């Protein structure tokens, strides 16, 4: 008799919690995959496509689906480390196919060579190029993410990537690099 009672009580508790969980799974359902948003937040948002995906969000989606985590060249080691932490996987070195120089760069249009073809404008993922057909184009330096995508489409090779100059605003303290000059 006692055993039956125990089964009944435990069974009813199980049923109750089952119902609760079932309710919660419907009531508090999360539509988007939160991991994709989190991954997207870690990526540098250059939208460069060097990973082989058309933008940072698609790559975040791909990583969530099991793509290799070491394809973001602009993010470099730091980003790989963060993604590895988030996904709970091993840190991998950056994919060999990518350049390792990820100093911040911006595109620069050599304006006398520009023929106004608008091809770079179409390529720019963040609308950072200003210009119109048969008018000289120019880069809005503050909006450029340095993604490199405008360089290839240029038919006259008038776009180059330039490393941002070091100024007092973006200078990094580096004790070993302070030059000491002789006074004479």
């Amino acid at each position, binding site marked *: 008799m006692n055993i039956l009672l125990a089964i009944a009580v435990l069974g009813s508790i199980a049923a109750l919690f089952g119902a609760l969980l079932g309710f919660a799974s419907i009531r508090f359902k999360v539509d988007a995959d939160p991991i994709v948003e989190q991954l997207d937040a870690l990526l540098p948002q250059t939208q460069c496509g060097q990973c082989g995906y058309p933008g940072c969000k698609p790559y975040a989606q791909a990583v969530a689906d099991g793509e290799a985590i070491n394809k973001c060249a602009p993010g470099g080691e730091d980003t790989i480390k963060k993604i590895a932490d988030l996904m709970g996987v091993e840190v991998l070195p950056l994919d060999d196919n990518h350049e390792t120089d990820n100093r911040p760069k911006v595109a620069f249009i050599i304006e006398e060579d520009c023929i106004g073809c608008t091809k770079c404008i179409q390529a720019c*993922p*963040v609308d950072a190029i200003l210009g119109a057909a048969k008018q000289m184009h120019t880069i809005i330096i503050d909006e450029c993410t340095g993604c490199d995508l405008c360089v290839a489409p240029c038919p006259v090779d008038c776009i180059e990537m330039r490393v941002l100059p070091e100024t007092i605003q973006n200078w990094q303290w580096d004790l070993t690099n302070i030059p000491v000059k002789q006074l004479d």
Partner: protein
Amino acid sequence: MESIIERITRGHFWTFHGGVHPPEQKKLTSATPIKQLSLPKQLILPLQQHIGREGKLLVEVGDKVLKGQALTSSENPMAVPIHASTSGIVSAIKNSIIAHPSGLQSLCIFIDVDGKDTWIEREPCTDIDNLSQLDLIKKIADAGIAGMGGAGFPTHIKVNNNEPVNFLIINGAECEPYITADDLLMQEQSEKIVSGIKLLEKLLTPSFILIAIEDNKPNAIKALQDATSTFDRIKVCVVPTKYPTGGEKQLIKILTGQEIKSGSLPIHAGIVMQNIATCFAIYDAVFNDTPLLKRVVTVTGQALTEPQNVWALLGTPVNFLLNACGAQRQQLTDQQNHQAVIMGGPMMGYSLSTDIVPIIKTSNCILVPSKEEMPSAFSDKSNEVECIRCGQCSDVCPSQLLPQELQWSAKAKDYPQLEKLNLSDCIDCGACAYVCPSQIPLVQYYRIAKAEIRTLHQFEVKADKAKVRFEARKLRLEKEKLAREEKHKKAAAARKAAMNKNTPEATGAKSAVAAALARVKAKKAKDKLTDSVAETQPETTKELKAKTPLSNQETPISDEKDQVKAAIARAKAKRLAKTQASQSSDKVIATDLEELPSINEQAQATIETSSDKPQNDKKAKIAAAIAKAKAKKLSQAPHQKSNENQQETKTSPKDDKKAKIALAIAKAKAKKQQQEQLSTLIKPENEST
């Protein structure tokens, strides 16, 4: 409130956590009066000498400028103008090394001093009481005054607020060793400083004004007490000597017992703090219409024979001051390969990379120590050893942080942890590094980490902006696509509607379409006929012929046969030509590639000739662009593929260059096609890339 004042009158103060008592070394300069210097030969005025933005240039190279003339204008409220410190000619406007730990260059105006020291016309103000608050603030802003204690915050912003102010604190603590600039200024100019303070009182209407001076400056205390004896609301507070009493939050804690929370400003607690030197500058700006042109600089250190305070014009190169204070060239070079010159005090200053940097609004001290005095300034390598976890650093930290943990996190570049440990509240005072028995340069690690965190924040802001722009663009492109489709649909519908109307035009069009359809039908039928001719017997052709209305009954069968034969011959010839062409096409491209340099030369030539003939300029430019585009196209095709091609190119003989290039082009083409196919799919296959 009352109790605070009572405590202050009784001489009882609160105390802040930590602090150190380094050797003061103020005796070196505190006894000598401030020296007036002759004019230097050249002044170097950096456009930006304060926190905020640089102003817009008002002068050009070659302009003659007078003393007190504004060189930049400030349209932005955070911009502070700079002025010519003496009369002369602007000899250059170029990048030059400025007083910054990085040793980096910044835009500076170079003035060749003419030695006449001619003033611009000034309007000394005689009727102060009739000046409105706005006039006062405008005068302060136009005089280019920025906080002279160190940070260089624009003063006109600090004094322009509507919040009620309980305490106006005048900071004369000057807690850093060696520096006596404010001390001497208080001794010599106490009346003017008090006048400046009264102007601030007019602007801020505080309940009380506290002048804080450390008890190691008895002469300054006496001078200010004498100058303020007739004013009840101004109290001279003699605070005990401890480093860093002069820190804003620390001094507020000492005087009022209030702690300013992390991330909030003193004004939120009803407190405004100004430096002594700033008060003097405000006096000069308002009463004498004199912009900020000079400041007191302590030039000190045991390596100098005449350490003293000097009135230095802004823009004076440091080496001029050193020479004036008896820097012994011979001795300096002999000591070692270099002589350390420190901008700022021994606790918070930084080594200068060169001694031609100019004095700016915030420079208060130049320290030239001897080797015995400060050995660490002379050695290139650090004597740092491992942290022994003694905890002395956290005992002395005036901001009550955990320097030891900060150090570990800074070394590990764990920036989120550093932010959790409130690194941003570190005031760079250097007390922790001073007491560290392991000689760890703690503050340097924090500075690196702070700069790093700042750049990371900038990147984050930029990334967010890029994301927004990217999504906006995607949305826009989608909208445009939809709009285009919609337009096409509408246009098609319009065409159809026009067709179905019963207007004469529509019927005309209809009949034209009908005629075209009939023609097409007829042609089809004919084709069928000719096809069957090749296979079937003439009888069946006849039958078909009979069925087709348009076929010519009179044409003999032999004629038709001839036609078919001819068609077959044509098709054969065509096929042959095609295969030949495909074989030779690679060759053609290869020869094109060889022509590449010549095309480039052509382009160059056209560019050169174009410079001679301006009327042909545009044409030549276009030609050059076309040539460039061609050259690029040709050079790109093999280049793109070179990576994947490597294995095959290895096996192929070296002399067969043409074949290799042709192969590369073919591969590139194939890849392009593949990529196009891939790009149409949303998910590219990774195996192929």
